[in-house]
């Protein structure tokens, strides 16, 4: 059984600063990491692998060549092999272009049973890429999975977590499955695994390697035009009380009364 895990590389959201005059986000110097939801997808793939002896896990990620180190984390967690798709042409990919790139690679791999992804990316959370990928590959898709069981008969049962109901579904493989953070608790790789991961293969491919033309991807192919991307206007008083506890509590109550939000 071959499980493919697609992982997005995202900026560390907690480290993004906002320019106070323009409200623009500052991404320079912000470290990149694997998306949170994708870690649940990878964890699930590795758990399936640990239960059976015929499972291979391949991680695919689109990103800059600098992200070779980030992808090593996925290998340390337990993936057998990584494919890093890196090309300046991919910069500014919209969801359609990312899905197209992933579909090309997955088609060239050919032999696969399950594609696991996060329910959305940690940064944009549009949830579009898995659906577009499923459509491109002509595969069934099961989204928002919080419980997953694979059967020997090359099928799966999943519990989908929707707003008002849990939906229990079954589908034959191959299929695209997206997962929620509640599916599992992703592990932190032990040092020995990190060392061992250095010997696992990382294939670095560009657009030409996978047969994608320049006009199919990147900014020029994008169907989304971003007019602006700014932090919402937030002006808070930031009165932080760090003194004697009783005084703090009195001061808080007085402040809330002054603001008219405490109707005592």
């Amino acid at each position, binding site marked *: 059984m071959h499980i493919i895990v697609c992982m997005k590389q*995202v*900026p560390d*959201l907690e480290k*993004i600063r*906002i320019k106070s005059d323009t409200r623009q*986000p500052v991404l320079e110097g912000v470290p990149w990491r694997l998306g949170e939801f994708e870690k649940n997808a990878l964890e699930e793939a590795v758990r399936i692998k640990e239960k059976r002896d015929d499972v291979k896990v391949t991680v695919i990620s689109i990103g800059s060549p600098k992200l070779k180190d980030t992808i090593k984390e996925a290998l340390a967690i337990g993936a057998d092999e990584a494919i890093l798709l890196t090309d300046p042409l991919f910069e500014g990919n*919209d*969801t359609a272009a990312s899905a197209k790139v992933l579909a090309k690679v997955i088609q060239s791999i050919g032999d696969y049973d399950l594609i696991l992804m996060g329910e959305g990316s940690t*940064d944009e*959370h*549009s*949830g*579009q*890429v898995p*659906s*577009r990928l*499923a*459509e*491109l590959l002509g595969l*069934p*898709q*099961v*989204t928002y999975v919080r419980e997953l069981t694979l059967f020997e008969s090359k099928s799966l049962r999943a519990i989908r977590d*929707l707003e*008002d*109901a*849990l*939906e*229990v579904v*079954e*589908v034959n493989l191959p*299929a695209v499955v997206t997962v929620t*953070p509640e599916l599992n608790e992703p592990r932190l790789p032990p040092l020995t695994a990190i060392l061992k991961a250095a010997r696992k293969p990382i294939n670095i491919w560009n657009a030409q390697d996978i047969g994608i033309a320049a006009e199919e991807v990147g900014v020029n192919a994008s*169907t*989304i*035009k*971003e*007019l602006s*991307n*700014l*932090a*919402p206007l*937030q002006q*808070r*008083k*930031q*009165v*932080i*009380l*760090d003194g004697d*506890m*009783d005084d*703090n509590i009195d001061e*808080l*109550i007085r402040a*809330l009364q002054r*603001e008219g*939000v405490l*109707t*005592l």
Partner: protein
Amino acid sequence: MNGVLIYSERRTLALELLTFARTLSVPVSVALLGEDSRAWAEDCFAHGAQCAYFSPHPALNDMQADVLASALAQIVTLAETDVILSGSTLRGREVAARLAQKLDAGCITDANGLRYEAGQLIATRYSLGGNTVSTQTITSPRQVIAVMPQTIQATPLEGFNHGEMIEVSLDLKPSPVQVIERRPKPIAGVDVASAEVVVCIGRGVNAPQDLAMVEALAKALGGVIACTRPISHDRHWLHEEQMIGISGKVVKPLLYLGIGLSGQIQHTVGISGAKIIAAINSDKNAPIFQLADYGIVGDLYQIVPKLLERLSTQSP
């Protein structure tokens, strides 16, 4: 823009989208997919739909995204529309993306604002995990925009609006995804989205029995209790409908009081509409303090009981 097609599996959301679409001066139609939605037609007409494309095809009954998207793609051709507005529920955003791929269209999901300006539809959505709000347009000839519930307020047209119901014959196959069972979730007794005071807890609250203390505080403040994602989705101490954040509720209370939560952006994106933000956290470097109007640095297990005591001695 030649016309707008509306779809949501949630009736109220379809009416919200119709309320917006009818302002665009183009033909507005709605897709009613599945036998259950037959009864929605009159409501849809009353909210501005000129035409309802209805299909009772049995393959639609399980509401799987692949079948819904295939049905919508066929209706788009029939109706000759180029803009599709869908509801951004979990199911709706999946349908939107799948449909967009079929139509070779650009797609925006989770839009929390939508306007029409200089001949273009302009949507806003959270970006960079909620750090920013991105304003976007779609440049492809066909456009799919999935809009969050309650982004638009549904209002019926004044007077009678005549609409045409067209039962369409669609070419649909049953989804390869088989629905075995649907287990409805219990309904939350607490409506955090419309509360005037929200007391929100995070992982700093150690045990479920400690909820009583926080609930008492919420009550003393005349508010309701809400939480961050781990509390509802991992620990299941509170209902999922009480979760505030990018994947949960957005609140606009007079007072938001965050207790034992660090203030990660995925959560705080849901509280920026609060008039006053207050926080209690033992870590003075917790990000919540940067967003707060008032904060107390300290142990919530000491502060909450004292605060409660103070509030009760002050009440008449």
